[in-house]
């Protein structure tokens, strides 16, 4: 009855998961057994160091002073824990996550099992193992079981093999193992797959299907590889992120996203609208005005009878063959007919719908990522661990970043101190007054400018109607309105910045939000008044004046002008604004710091430009100028390089913290919501109410565009009786715009509600898990003290075991 009794590894292993809850001496064995299991396993897998240490101590029970007492913390009520205890503690399951290979493999075995269950059928609660405390079933601590490493690996490989290829790859990629081990796992899985495949005699069609799937997968990989290799702007983006960090990078990434959107639109519109029209060119009606350089700016003149504008597109089925003599080679009866107006209608609708879906999806995804579930404390720890931007490479930027973080930490430390400083009533009143003043100033300036635009556009409109034939001067004078609008867009944000300087905010994020909302109000009101001008005035005067006979083309030209002038002004602003400011601050003010890159303002400018080309006059833009996405693409490309060089030359890394994911979410939301809502209003108004002009569009001859669609569908139904449901559907759904709106609003609300429910559910799980972690902590404390006391007892001479046992029983009874 010596040492081998309690601590030896050859004690029969008992099945137990509850730790020492019953307090009789017989259960002492149980406690030791489970630990000895752990020790045994560790000694098998990881080396004998732990077990040896323990056996040494067992071997010399007389040796009293050999314990290396380690202090864990300076607080008084901590016990001194021996090194043996510490070794055991560090090999407990929850401590080995991410460290020991065995634990990782077990963890992933559990995960793959769960994934299999989820994909195959819904798991019932009773399938999950019982747990001692009310935790989420099946979400328990990943226990390092007592199987050997090879068996565990085998089971994991088997599970992996049962998953689908996509899931398998995802699991492999996410495992925190060495790459060579992952490759081994993969090889084993593939071998096992081959074995099971070849052993089961597959019928030939399944085999064929299998080969087809393999081939598809291979081609998908090469496609992805190709797309990745395009790597648009990878080096410039790397330079920007290396020097300025993630904040400024997010602006350029946003620009890239917008570019891809426009490319997509261009491809869709181009293949369905522009290409057929370009192939079957209609005959030129009148004499065209010769090309002068001014057209690039005004978009009129030579361009008015090209593919650029809506008016050019044919309103017949292509090829346009007159009934009598046809000298054109395309006009045999066997050529394909292409119904232009219908194509126009459906293509625009389709692209609109698809971009809407993409936007809502990306918005909800970024919402999910950036949603701060628990807004309470934790700021300091987060700042220490999550604030270093690993992308920053340049030495001076790294230095700036360190200073930045230092300042933020000091602020957070001193935060409590600040709050204690009492604000007198007078201080609060003065602060309120200043805020009120600056808001009235900003809103007043906005209202004034909007009224100015309204009056000026009215004046220009009258002037254009009254003057005579279109000449070069008249074309140039059409540029006046865009110039005014761009000028206002440039100057007013500077005013907003000046007013923001005199205000004092509690937190930098509040300052950013206020500035963002002011800029947003300005842009929205400007766009609103322009919309009114186009839709009411210009379209309304279509009947009165021969200049506005083809009002759609005129509006298209106006949009083109706005786009171009906006681009020129942002060029000027970048070149002169930032360059001059840098020279000024270098030479005159003799400051060493360069201006920071104002991310919010620049992103808002991007959104504004995109809105012009895309949304608000939205599909108005698309509707009337199908090649507008191409123009926007060119503009974005140029803008990228110009902004990049300007930022490199003139700006420095931001000195204020910038919450990247939150701001990106806001920008995507801004792109989606005001633009989307406004655009649907505009599009429906245009299509349902406005009379199309008589002379120059694919829908000419009908009262409104929607009636053209109705007519076409009626024709289709005449040809084919079974499509009559289409006509009914058309009447109910499409003709009643209110229904469409309500339907879309309900759908959107459902999506948002679903996502918020998901977030709520996750919040609850987190609370439960936190509670579970605290409970585990308590458990461990209990275990440690028990183990420590047992170990202490072992150190005293254990000659007389029966007396020891009786002593123990006496103690227990006393408790």
């Amino acid at each position, binding site marked *: 009855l010596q040492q081998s009794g309690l601590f030896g590894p050859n004690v029969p292993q008992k099945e137990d998961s509850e730790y020492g809850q019953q307090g009789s001496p017989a259960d002492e064995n149980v406690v030791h057994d489970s630990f000895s299991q752990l020790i045994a396993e560790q000694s098998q897998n990881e080396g004998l160091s732990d077990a040896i240490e323990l056996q040494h101590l067992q071997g010399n029970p007389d040796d009293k002073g050999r314990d290396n007492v380690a202090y864990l*913390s300076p607080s008084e009520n901590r016990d001194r824990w021996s090194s043996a205890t510490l070794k055991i503690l*560090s090999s407990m399951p*929850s*401590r080995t*996550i*991410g*460290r020991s290979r065995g634990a990782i493999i077990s963890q992933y075995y559990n995960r793959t099992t769960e994934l299999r269950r989820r994909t195959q059928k819904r798991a019932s609660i009773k399938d999950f193992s019982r747990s001692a405390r009310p935790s989420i079933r099946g979400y328990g601590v990943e226990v390092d079981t007592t199987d050997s490493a090879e068996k565990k690996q085998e089971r994991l490989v088997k599970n992996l093999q049962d998953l689908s290829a996509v899931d398998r790859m995802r699991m*492999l*990629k*996410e495992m*925190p193992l*060495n*790459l*060579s081990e*992952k*490759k081994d796992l993969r*090889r084993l899985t593939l071998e096992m797959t081959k074995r099971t495949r070849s052993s089961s005699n597959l019928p030939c069609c399944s085999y064929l299907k299998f080969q087809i799937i393999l081939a598809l997968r291979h081609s998908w*990989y*090469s496609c992805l*590889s190709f797309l*990745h290799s395009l790597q648009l702007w*990878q080096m410039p983006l*790397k330079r920007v*992120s290396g020097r300025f960090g*993630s904040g400024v990078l997010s602006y350029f990434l946003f620009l890239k996203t917008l570019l891809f959107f426009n490319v997509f639109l261009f491809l869709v519109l181009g293949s369905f609208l522009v290409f057929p029209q370009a192939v079957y060119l209609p005959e030129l009606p009148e004499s065209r005005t010769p090309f002068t350089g001014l057209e690039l700016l005004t978009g009129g003149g030579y361009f008015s009878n090209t593919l650029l504008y809506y008016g050019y597109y044919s309103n017949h089925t292509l090829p346009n063959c007159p009934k009598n003599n046809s000298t054109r080679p395309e006009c045999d009866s066997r050529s394909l007919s292409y119904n232009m107006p219908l194509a126009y209608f459906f293509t625009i609708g389709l692209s609109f719908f698809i971009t809407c879906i993409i936007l809502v999806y990306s918005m909800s995804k970024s919402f999910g*990522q*950036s949603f*701060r*579930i*628990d807004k309470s404390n*934790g*700021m*300091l*720890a*987060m700042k*220490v*661990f*999550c*604030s*270093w*931007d*690993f*992308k920053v*490479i340049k*030495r001076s930027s*790294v*230095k700036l970043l*360190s200073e930045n*973080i*230092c300042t933020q*930490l*000091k602020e957070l*430390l001193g935060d409590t101190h600040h709050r204690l400083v009492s604000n007198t009533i007078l201080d609060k009143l003065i602060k309120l007054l200043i805020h009120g003043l600056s808001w009235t100033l900003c809103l007043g300036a906005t209202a004034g400018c909007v009224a100015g635009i309204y009056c000026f556009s009215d004046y220009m409109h009258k002037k254009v109607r009254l003057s005579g034939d279109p000449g070069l001067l008249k074309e140039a004078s059409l540029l006046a309105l865009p110039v005014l609008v761009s000028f206002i867009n440039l100057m007013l944000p500077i005013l907003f910045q000046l007013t923001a300087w005199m205000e004092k905010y509690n937190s930098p994020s509040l300052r950013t939000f206020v500035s963002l909302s002011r800029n947003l109000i300005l842009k929205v009101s400007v766009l609103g008044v322009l919309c009114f001008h186009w839709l009411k005035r210009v379209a309304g005067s279509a009947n009165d004046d021969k200049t506005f006979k083809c009002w759609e083309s005129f509006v298209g030209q106006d949009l083109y002008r706005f786009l171009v002038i906006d681009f020129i002004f942002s060029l000027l602003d970048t070149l002169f604004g930032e360059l001059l400011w840098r020279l000024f601050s270098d030479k005159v003010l003799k400051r060493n710091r360069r201006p920071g890159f104002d991310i919010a303002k620049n992103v808002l400018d991007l959104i504004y430009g995109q809105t012009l080309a895309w949304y608000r006059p939205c599909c108005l833009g698309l509707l009337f100028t199908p090649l507008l996405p191409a123009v926007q693409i060119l503009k974005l490309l140029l803008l990228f390089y110009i902004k990049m060089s300007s930022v490199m030359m003139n700006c420095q890394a931001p000195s204020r913290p910038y*919450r990247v*994911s939150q701001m990106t979410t806001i920008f995507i939301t801004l792109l989606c919501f005001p633009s989307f809502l406004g655009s649907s209003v505009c599009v429906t108004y245009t299509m349902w109410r406005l009379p199309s002009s008589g002379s120059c569009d694919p829908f000419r001859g009908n009262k409104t565009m929607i009636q053209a669609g109705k007519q076409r569908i009626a024709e289709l139904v005449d040809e084919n009786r079974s499509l009559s449901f289409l006509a009914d559907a058309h009447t109910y759904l499409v003709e009643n715009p209110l229904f469409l709106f309500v339907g879309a609003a309900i759908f959107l609300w459902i999506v948002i509600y679903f996502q918020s429910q998901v977030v709520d559910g996750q919040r609850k799980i987190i609370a439960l898990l*936190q509670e579970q*972690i*605290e409970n585990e*902590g308590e458990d*461990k404390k209990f275990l440690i003290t028990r183990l420590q006391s047992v170990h202490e007892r072992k150190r005293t001479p254990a000659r007389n075991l029966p007396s020891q046992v009786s002593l123990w029983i006496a103690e227990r009874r006393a408790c």
Partner: protein
Amino acid sequence: MGNKQTIFTDEQLDAYQDCTFFTRKEILRLHSRYHELAPHLVPMDYTNEPDCKLPLALIVDMPELKENPFRNRIVESFSEDGMGNLSFNEFVDMFSVLSEMAPRELKAIYAFKIYDYNVDNYLCKEDLEKTLNKLTKEELTPEEVELVCEKAIEEADLDGDNKLSYTDFENMISRAPDFLSTFHIRI
């Protein structure tokens, strides 16, 4: 597809593509970067899986890592021997975890390893102090450092042992939405 390269077999490239977040082209580019670090040591032909490791000093000299205050710890956490000698597999592993597409959990595991200076599976006060000093380049006074460490542990420690275990760390990371975008190195 594309040009015939002789550095890796197709099967090897497939394996890399399945197990990391990189595509074939990126793996080849990574190999050329690895080769650039020591042209005479790194063979051009990896079809036989040669056993070649580059020392810490060479890896840490890369422009992406040179100015990073945690560069030594980053390379050490991904090396098998813990001393910072990386083979090509470990090199690819490192940049794969630090790439854009790695999920939050994977990044959290390695971030924990990086900040754990004494490799005892806990973030104790000394680890935090060292992290903080590297972060702020010793601009804070010792009292401030002490205060920050204490407060940080107080905020994040859930099971009450006065140091941060992996679960505490993971819990804290889950509340920081910017972690994914800051813990990212572009290669």
